[in-house]
């Protein structure tokens, strides 16, 4: 099974749009996906990521724009004529067919000779490590095994594009980690061009070559996991990347890419994203693990500790400023609940966005 032999270079979405009545679920999504790439569509629920996937699969028609494989326009094609593979959130395995028949379904529908189906299905079963389960019905398999069948069924037809719709969301936490590694391994082996929809940034960061962050039906940012994690371009992308602490205020001074934001009774400094001049309203965002106890240092953020959780190697605390802003911080010791402490934020790690 070599997808490298498929003759195409890229899949392009050109201003792909979808409206449900007056609601614009997707607004002019443009994206170019190179062959072999693993793309994650990341966003909160209702952001349009599943709509985008269904439009690409052909299960929903688009209301504007086009979908192209190289120069061939395919958005008018029926789903069965697009030749993609799809892995569904609830697996959607055919309950009356054995694992072997489920996996061979796409090949059979394409009228391939039985001998070819047998060989390819056997290879696919090996790839997803389901030897010994080939003659079982889906109902006899565990959730993780069912999802392996669904993946095998999608990739056995050697599609130009594999679509995955939150494939791990029905699995428990431990299995989710296992299957994540499994999907990565299968992708490395098969190099199947993949679009993976998820609302879990950890999944997107660990699996994808590039992440597309969607919000309100629009692309907010496209980049490698590293780019998105280190340099989110918007506040909402930053929130998705773990910047849970936010201080709204005004820029009081700027020095190079460093800005100081005054947020009521205190000031904090961070790295500017975009263009912000003194006087502009801004939000400084920081990850909890970049907010630390500032023992004996003055000039930090004075807060009252509200709760402390022990997390093994360290403590995670929730504190509140005099103005009522909640801050989540990390600490190597447990300050007393109710005590007043100073918190410091690493200015190199905190980001300042326009508000």
């Amino acid at each position: 099974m070599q997808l490298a032999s498929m003759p195409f270079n890229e899949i392009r979405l050109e201003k792909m749009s979808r409206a449900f009545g007056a609601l614009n679920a997707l607004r002019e999504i443009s994206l170019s996906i190179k062959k072999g790439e693993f793309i994650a569509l990341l966003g909160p629920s209702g952001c349009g990521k599943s709509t985008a996937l269904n439009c690409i699969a052909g299960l929903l028609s688009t209301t504007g724009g086009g979908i192209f494989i190289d120069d061939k326009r395919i958005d008018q094609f029926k789903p069965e004529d697009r030749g993609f593979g799809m892995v569904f959130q609830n697996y959607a395995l055919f309950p009356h067919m054995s694992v072997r028949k489920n996996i061979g379904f796409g090949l059979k529908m394409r009228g391939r000779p039985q001998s070819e189906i047998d060989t390819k299905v056997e290879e696919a079963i090996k790839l997803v490590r389901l030897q010994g389960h080939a003659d079982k019905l889906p109902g006899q398999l565990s959730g993780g095994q069912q999802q392996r069948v669904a993946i095998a069924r999608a990739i056995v037809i050697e599609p130009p594009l594999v679509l995955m719709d939150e494939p791990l969301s029905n699995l428990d936490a431990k299995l989710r980690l296992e299957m994540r590694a499994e999907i990565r391994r299968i992708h490395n082996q098969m190099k199947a061009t993949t679009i993976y929809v998820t609302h879990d940034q950890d999944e997107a960061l660990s699996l994808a070559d590039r992440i597309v962050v969607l919000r309100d039906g629009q692309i907010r940012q496209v980049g490698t996991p590293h780019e998105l994690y280190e340099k989110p371009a918007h506040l909402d992308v930053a929130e998705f990347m773990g910047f849970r602490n936010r201080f709204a205020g005004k820029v009081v001074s700027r020095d190079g890419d460093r800005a100081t934001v005054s947020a009521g009774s205190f000031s904090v400094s961070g790295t500017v994203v975009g263009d912000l001049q003194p006087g502009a309203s801004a939000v400084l965002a920081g990850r909890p693990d970049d907010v630390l106890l500032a023992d004996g240092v003055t000039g930090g953020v004075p807060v009252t500790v509200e709760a402390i959780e022990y997390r093994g190697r360290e403590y995670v605390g929730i504190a509140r400023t005099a103005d009522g802003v909640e801050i989540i911080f990390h600490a190597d010791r447990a300050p007393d609940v109710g005590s007043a402490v100073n918190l410091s934020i690493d200015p190199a790690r905190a980001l300042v966005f326009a508000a």
Partner: protein
Amino acid sequence: MSVITDHEPTSLRKKLALRGIDGVTLLLLPSVIFVLAIFIYPFFYGLMLSFTPIREGGMFANYIAFFSDPYLYNTIGATLRLAVPVTLLCVAFAVPVAMRVRLMKHQRLLTTILVLPITLGTVLVAQGMLNYLGPQGWFSRTLMLLHIVDSPVKLTNNYWGVFLSLVVTVFPFTFLLTLSYVTGIDPGLEKAAATHGASAWQRFRHVMLPLLVPGLAIAFCLTFVQAFAVFPSAVLLGAPSGPTRVISIAAAQAAFEQYDFTMASAIAMIMGVVQLCIVLLVLVIRNLFYRGATSGGKG
């Protein structure tokens, strides 16, 4: 366990629970009495009655009489010739209609229209069709007006009259059953089949149909039992002494024309056995197919 027995059980429910009886089960009692009085007892009463014939010839005399008189035993064939094609047609027709209706926005409206004949009752439908399909009815007149036929189409007082009225009265029932089975199949499965290259026909043939078979078998059985018991339309729209002399007519004649209730009971028992045979046959066939969940994984 000794802790429980140490305490004096206070309520009847607790006393029963200690003996392994769930008190709530007692709520079944009224319906059990009802079923016993209205169904089980009359059934066995009729069964015994059929073995105590008025005529000479021992306890099986009624049955021997039935199976030695072609005018009587031919009613089985006549009824099957009506009931089986009607049932097959209804089931075959209900599937595509249900497949379409499940995707419709105004599903409830269409369902209401289709179900209306159930509420009208068989006699009213038969009467209506007698007027509509009769020699002076609209149906023939319209066809003649359009010069499609020269003389009225004969659709009453024969096999086709009964056939049509049976389809009209039985189809809504078959349709409702089928619709519930069709909508019970996870729509994700069809989507999965489509994305993996199955055309509309292949999706039906390889995914929907195999999952529908168990439901369709039940729909067939229940529709068949209804159609087999055809009586008013066979009398009103058919030829009750000819091709549509169905088994229920034979039973009615025995009971209310010859006043031989033992013979009527015997005919009713034979009717039940024939129905049971067909139903069992269909259920045996059904067991050859997949039966189980109709969703494709965790929902």
